[in-house]
């Protein structure tokens, strides 16, 4: 297994003033501390998709190529009215084969105290149908607007320990699933 494990971070909202952006950068930096793992940021705001159609018909080449290269995905998803941003679903729906048997972990983000737990639960069946394999650790970022300083530095260090556990699980699952995709045949 010469290629490093590749786990891009998808920032799942285009809303102005999004606190999720800090969470995404925090996750990126924590991934980059690990040997043998590479990452990059995918910002849904930067993926130019029409709203006149949907699904694989509007597949965006660079996004599809990045997901195809990925061994896993880390989704940073704010909770809007208990649900996920419609734009994120619009983006995710443009691929299919690129996701199958790849690991995915979700970092839920909320202004309130539940750390996006409702959006995480709502998103799980979507990810399953796409063929992704969900891990059993989540990131839960509560009170997101007050969780980072003006420079985007996280103020509560307990999140470092928590995301370490989350990433260990995500990387393990991504590693195992890559082996499975490339070496274990469907019977």
């Amino acid at each position, binding site marked *: 297994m010469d290629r490093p494990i590749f786990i891009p971070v998808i920032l799942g909202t285009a809303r102005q003033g999004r606190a999720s952006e800090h969470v995404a950068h925090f996750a990126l930096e924590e991934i980059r501390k690990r040997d043998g793992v590479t990452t990059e940021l995918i910002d849904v705001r930067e993926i130019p998709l029409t709203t006149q159609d949907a699904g694989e018909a509007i597949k965006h080449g660079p996004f599809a190529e990045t997901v*195809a290269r990925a061994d896993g995905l880390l989704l940073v998803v704010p909770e809007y009215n208990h649900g996920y941003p419609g734009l994120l679903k619009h983006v995710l729906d443009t691929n299919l*084969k690129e996701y199958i*048997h790849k690991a995915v972990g979700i970092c839920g983000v909320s202004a309130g105290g539940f750390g996006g737990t409702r959006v995480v639960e709502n998103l799980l069946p979507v990810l399953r149908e796409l063929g992704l394999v969900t891990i059993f650790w989540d990131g839960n970022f509560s009170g997101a607007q007050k969780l980072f300083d003006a420079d985007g530095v996280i103020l509560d260090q307990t999140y470092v320990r928590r995301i370490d556990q989350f990433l260990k699980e995500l990387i393990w699952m991504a*590693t195992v699933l890559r*082996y499975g*995709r*490339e*070496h*274990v045949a*469907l019977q």
Partner: protein
Amino acid sequence: VTAVLHLIFGKENGLMAKNTMMCPKCGDPMNCHAEKVDYAGALEDPAIASSDFGGLLQEVHACQGCGNIELRVAGAHGS
């Protein structure tokens, strides 16, 4: 992790068993690790839809060399 998996599954488990797809990007053998029903594909050409699944059954192949992903209609190559 990889070393343990090789011990459990064997390095060449299932490979080259039948109708191995070769990667169009790097030429390495690919592994069929999944099948998925494509309902949209069946709408475009109902004649090729599987009556068992109500859609087109697609094999998903991954390349050991470069990680490339390819789809192939299940059964069309004797698999």
